[in-house]
């Protein structure tokens, strides 16, 4: 219950005005009783209209579960969701299935990590794009197919009219993700959630897809939640970044502020692990020593403490709260750390750098 404070600590309306999406104390628990596992723990953040917000963290920190909870796409059984998710003034969590169905794909859309398995293998591409338009815009099949071709063209798929009749296996990985983006943006949603949209793709294709996403959301004024484990992706795209660890937000800052002065040792580790041109390609990057398996429960202190180089005595005694950080380091920064970094680890001379060793 100590975490409840996050609600009060959260500065609302960072850029002024009503946020498009406002997540408060979102908590998702799988299972119940002694085997209950809290994958997302009192997560709160805002997304302003047209803003791009990053959700960053290692595998298993709860990024996908957060986004699926917002979309209400979690399995219908075996989990409990609490908190509020207000989207354009409506609490999505209190909507009925049918009401939520009307909003998904129209007002808020999502793209996923693996483009091949996310497309239906036995349905032509044109139908998979057109069905969104038919569902939400009441279009008939022929005009919907025509519009689908335009959308495919817009996301950079060559020869779109011919592609309408093709099947996912006939496309390359990058093209598939483009097609999924076309489906997600077909109804010009106000919010797009992209869950690691480039993880399954080649490096060169990754850059193309990110550039495309950036261009599209800027042109249409769509707000974007960008989920990634790679701060490098965030660098070119996000206005604001939430760093997640063990189901909780551990740091939140504007992009420039975060890169200039990471405060949480975990963020520092993530930053140090962004591949630089001087390094060899394809190295499996370990952001921080150890793994999530070393976590201690948040009730007993800071979950990150066992992996943290800045650990001090209090870290395993008292759970750190998410509180406003020093204002001179950036506006509206939040931090959950007893012993934050006082300098940017990347400013150190490369010889003294020890990350991942």
């Amino acid at each position, binding site marked *: 219950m100590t975490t409840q404070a996050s609600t009060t600590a959260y500065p609302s309306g960072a850029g002024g005005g009503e946020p498009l999406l406002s997540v408060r104390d979102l908590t998702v628990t799988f299972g119940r009783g002694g085997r209950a596992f809290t994958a997302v723990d009192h997560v709160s953040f805002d997304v302003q209209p047209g803003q791009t917000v990053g959700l960053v963290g290692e595998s298993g920190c709860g990024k996908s579960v957060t986004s699926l909870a917002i979309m209400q796409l979690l399995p219908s059984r075996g989990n409990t969701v609490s908190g509020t998710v207000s989207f354009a003034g409506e609490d999505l969590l209190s909507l009925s299935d049918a009401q939520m169905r009307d909003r998904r794909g129209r007002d808020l859309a999502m793209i996923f990590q693996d483009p091949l398995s996310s497309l*239906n293998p036995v349905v032509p591409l044109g139908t998979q794009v057109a069905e969104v338009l038919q569902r939400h815009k009441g279009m008939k099949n022929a005009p919907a197919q025509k519009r689908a071709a335009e959308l495919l063209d817009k996301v950079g798929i060559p020869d779109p009219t011919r592609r309408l009749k093709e099947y996912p296996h006939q496309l390359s990985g990058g093209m598939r993700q483009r097609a999924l983006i076309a489906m997600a943006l077909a109804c010009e949603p106000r919010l797009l959630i992209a869950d690691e949209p480039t993880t399954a793709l080649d490096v060169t294709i990754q850059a193309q897809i990110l550039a495309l996403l950036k261009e599209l959301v800027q042109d249409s004024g769509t707000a974007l939640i960008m989920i990634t484990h790679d701060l490098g992706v965030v660098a070119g795209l996000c206005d604001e970044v939430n760093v997640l660890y063990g189901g909780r937000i551990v740091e939140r800052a504007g992009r420039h502020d975060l890169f200039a002065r990471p405060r949480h040792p975990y963020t520092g580790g993530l930053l140090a692990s962004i591949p630089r041109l001087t390094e060899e390609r394809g190295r499996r990057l370990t952001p921080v020593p150890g793994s999530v398996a070393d976590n201690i429960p948040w009730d007993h202190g800071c979950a990150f403490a066992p992996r943290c180089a800045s650990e001090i005595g209090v870290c395993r005694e008292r759970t750190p709260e998410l509180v406003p950080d020093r204002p001179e380091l950036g506006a509206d920064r939040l931090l959950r750390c007893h012993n934050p970094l006082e300098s940017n680890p990347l400013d150190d001379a490369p010889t003294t750098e020890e990350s991942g060793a």
Partner: protein
Amino acid sequence: MLRFIVRRLLQALIALFVLSVLLFAWLRSLPGGVVSALLGERGTPESAAKLRAQLGLDDPIPVQYWRFLERAVQGDFGVSNGVYRGQPALDVFTQRFPATIELSFFAILIALTFAIPLGYFAARRRGGVLDTGSVVFSLVGVAVPVFFLAYVLKYLFAVRWGLLPPSGRQTVGINATHITNFYVLDALMTREWDAAWDALKHLVLPALALSSIPFAVVFRITRAAVIDVMDEDYVRTARAKGLTARTIRGRHIMRNALIPVVTIVGLQIGALLAGAVLTEKVFAFQGIGQALAIGFELRDYPVLQVLIMMAALIYIVVNLLVDIAYAVIDPRVRL
């Protein structure tokens, strides 16, 4: 596609040729033989010798086979020397075959109509009453021998309660024209509604008995496939698009879940023909099953040859159709 079909038909031709050789040799190696079957107790050595010469049975088997093959390619499969004595063996087939097809068709129809929706709903409510109930039911369905089920159905619905006819394909003396020997189809074509209804009533019990195994198999495959497909990423994508439950079910779940079902239906055709033989016997249903049984008793080689060869041909053709259906619903399959 066309090349695939031609290639498969050529393969079928080779398979049929090999089968004909094996069949010919196997039938003639059966103990007993046609002469003793035909003459029975009254046979004298002289009359037996005469009959053997008449039927060409004294020639070496390869010579007999060559004679058979020569005629067969011209469409002449010999003349029955069993109960259909004097009738061309091929006629025995064409007269009786529609009955078996009709029976198998209705059995498959019943199986699919019930098994696919039930499989879907059982998967959606996994562990629920409907699911548990149908899983147990389908286990019983595979476990109970077809002929036993046939006897039970016949006893209850025909003998005991008199709701349905116990045997045959049609009430004797009913006014019915036969064109194709598919009785239901014939009656519909000639608009003899009474005859159609009568033929349908005769079909219900045997088709029900015969449908038990395909029903159970299709149910289990559908259920397992739907459970798998529901967890697929593309179903999540479909939900993320806000599609209606109906579109998700039809276009995104079932279209994928039916792929293994089509395969299994193809594989069931063989079992279905075997089951038809047993069912036809219980219900005195005049199909090839019954003709086969009698043919074996009397060592009616020409009839047996034609029936078994044709059954094999049907099996090959149906499986070809299944493969084509497979390519139609799954674009990843190239023929």
